[in-house]
């Protein structure tokens, strides 16, 4: 240990401690002056505000903690919807960019270049304030397929009314568990005896048959509730029944998925291009069919390149969903760091909770990614 090694570290430590000390001293003085005491006790207080759209029951009599949960669930909802659509669009566009058809390739490239180079916030505003405002009023809306109503007040879709929903879910869980076992069994069988089992068709069959059985014998039944138009006042109409997806949710999900899809498309393209041509030729030369080449040789190697950056994009999408605050979609930032902060004035506590939530989310995903990367990395001898 020499002085040259210790000195810079001590200096850094000193500066960091000084800065933090300065900040926390000031914070204490400021809070004393304003008569606030630091603490998270306010979370159990009555919130006395209402949220437009929430997945769980919420009104003014619930606590701030429940408001936090409402915001978190809404964030998760829009992120999941966005991730699903972004993945689908991204894969399609990514493959289209590799097509040997010039027109398809150019169309996909134009889409990617265009949507990637426009700020996400601008796209959200565009969909919310410009595009969705051109939709018809509820009373003028034309039904799509007779049951969907796309109006300026939101997207009204039919809802399922379930009887014995839990049995249905149990049957799904049973199907998934048995599929996992079948996969393990099939893999072992292939390694030991070299015989392939048609896992995919068995899985699909199980996923279909078990829920159907639950309908037939488990007493599960579902009826569809179609939204019906209802007059509120002279000119005010709305739909009753079914599920209402507010326009905020639609425009946010639309913008997030269209924007993120461009990045996922680039990941997919890079992944497929990253598999060297020799691999395909070698696979074909040992007599694999084109399908097998794709399934057994190209995809496993391409996925190894595709998945890490794509997970990063999912993470970005989740973080970008916080832009919801700009169009008043009640997500974590708007409900908790917006309304709750305004009411309680507890800036430090609330902003720190919000940041910690996102931080723990992204750190857990990146830990998972590190583990996954290690698992799929090529093991060289």
């Amino acid at each position, binding site marked *: 240990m020499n002085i040259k*090694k210790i000195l*810079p*570290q*001590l200096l*850094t*430590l000193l500066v*960091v401690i000084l800065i933090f000390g*300065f*900040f*926390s001293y*000031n*914070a204490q*003085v*400021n*809070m004393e*002056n304003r008569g606030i005491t630091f603490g998270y006790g306010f979370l159990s207080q009555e919130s006395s505000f209402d949220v437009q759209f929430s997945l769980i029951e919420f009104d003014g009599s619930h606590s701030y903690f429940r408001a936090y949960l409402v915001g978190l669930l809404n964030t998760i909802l829009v992120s999941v919807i966005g991730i699903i659509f972004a993945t689908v669009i991204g894969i399609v566009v990514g493959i289209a960019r590799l*097509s*040997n*058809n*010039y*027109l*398809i390739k150019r*169309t996909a490239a134009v889409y990617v*270049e*265009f949507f*990637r*180079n*426009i*700020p*996400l*916030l*601008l*796209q959200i*505003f*565009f969909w919310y*304030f*410009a*595009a969705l*405002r051109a939709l018809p009023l509820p009373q003028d809306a034309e039904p799509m397929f007779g049951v969907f109503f796309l109006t300026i007040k939101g997207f009204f879709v039919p809802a399922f009314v379930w009887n014995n929903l839990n049995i249905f879910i149990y049957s799904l869980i049973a199907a998934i568990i048995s599929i996992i076992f079948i996969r393990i069994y099939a893999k072992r069988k292939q390694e030991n005896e070299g015989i392939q089992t048609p896992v995919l068709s068995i899985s699909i069959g199980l996923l279909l048959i078990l829920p159907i059985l639950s309908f037939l014998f488990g007493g599960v039944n579902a009826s569809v509730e179609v939204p019906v138009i209802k007059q509120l006042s002279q000119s005010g109409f709305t739909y009753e029944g079914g599920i209402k997806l507010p326009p905020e949710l639609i425009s946010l999900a639309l913008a997030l998925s269209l924007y993120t899809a461009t990045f996922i498309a680039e990941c997919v393209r890079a992944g497929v291009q990253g598999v060297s041509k020799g691999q395909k030729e070698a696979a074909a030369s040992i007599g694999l069919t084109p399908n097998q080449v794709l399934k057994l040789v190209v995809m496993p190697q391409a996925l190894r390149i595709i998945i890490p950056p794509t997970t990063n994009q999912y993470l970005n999408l989740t*973080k*970008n969903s*916080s*832009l919801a*605050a*700009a169009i008043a979609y009640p997500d974590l*930032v708007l409900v908790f*760091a917006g309304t709750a*902060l305004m009411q309680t004035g507890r*800036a*430090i506590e609330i*902003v*720190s909770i*919000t*940041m910690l939530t*996102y*931080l723990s*989310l*992204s*750190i857990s995903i*990146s830990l998972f990614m590190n583990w996954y990367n290690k698992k799929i990395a090529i093991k060289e001898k």
Partner: protein
Amino acid sequence: MNKLNFLQPDKNNLSTYLYTGVVLLVLSIFIVFFNSFFNRDLLSFLPGTISFFLPLILGFIGLHLIRIDYSGLKFLDKVNKNINTNNFNAFLSLLIVFAVIKSLPPLLSWFILDANIAGDSKDVCTGSGACWTYIKIWFNRFMYGMYPNPEQWRINLSFVALAFLGTIGFFATEKFKKYLTLYYVVVYPIIAFFFIFFFISGGPIFFDFSYGIIAAVISTIIGFLIPSKFKMYYFIIVPITVYILLKYVFFYEELIELGKLETLEWVETGAWGGLSLTFIVSFFCLIFCFPIGLFLSLGRRSDFPIIKYFSIGMIEFWRGVPLITVLFMSSVMFPMFLPEDMFIDKLVRVIIAISLFEAAYVAEVIRGGLQALPRGQYDAAKSLGMGYWKMHILIILPQALKLVIPGIANTFLALVKDTPLIFVVGLLEIVGMLNLAKTNPDWLGFAMEGYVFASVLFFIICYAMSKYSYNLEQKYKTER
């Protein structure tokens, strides 16, 4: 030989297949074209569904007929290879062509034919197209925000000056090339900082600054005439003398007091806005986030545990939270951390917040470049007796940075696209101004025009940046 099999066109009856195919294809395109441009349905005598699908079927058959391998016609082979390799491809190509033809007339009419640009009030916008008058009237606001109109030349002049100073690198002679890095990394940002914070902001401080600039310019010009022996002393003494002369001998202050010279009006940062604010914020964040990111990335690979874990903590923290919460923090939480009497300007807080945020991303990108360098480079540098800083500045960083040009360009693009978020703290750059203009009672209902306008602007800026980074990448590409 002459047997025609329409299911399998071959080379033997080339002309028959070709003519039939081309006629069918042209016919189908013509039908769609006529339908979309002149609003006439040539197939109205047929039942609805058939007339809807007939062009597609005709075109599909046409493309099938001209799909002849090795026809000997260069153009035909090219078409077949590019858009017509198999049935599925032909179908998709047709769909794209029809979609383009179908969507052209409404787009054309909205953008140009039915659009209005004349006049200066909402009343002229009666057509079904876009109302570019709105953009024309609000153009100043979209560009400069609430900056007072008579003072806008200051923003223009600063940007022109900075753009000119930025391009000096292209004109530099061989002799000065080696100072370019120093110029761009240290001198240019400082000049830019002074320009923006004193010239655009204005106020009395500007005069000290302007004396400084004039002194520097005069002394540089004279500097070339002085023998090199005395240059060192010269560059210290002369600027100060010129400065003092300007300030105390020529009595500028008295001229101002007499009203012969006007001072610049002070414009608070809250009034800045529009596209110029986008440029200012992204420019500063860009020049600050790069060095911070560089140090963080070096810190992350450092041997000193405290520095290493401090860097890791910084990087992971900023990367883990959304920018909007960082801006929330800078606007509502950060003032709590400062002494009562200390106040930091909104714009400065925003620039610090975004710089720290983007620096974490830059750090990760640079780390990728550092990791990609082979161990041998470090060993070779060390064996030549170089210390840590010398090794990094002369050997490691030039190679690593070259490798990560695309990544850094992507981060900078993300930065430019993130600037609209500053609406959170109440600063209105172009997207914020659009939202403000949209709610103006005199100009309701033109949201679409505004967003399209801003989208086009951002697209041009970002696309140019990405193309420029691609050029840089090609320029500095070295074979390894």
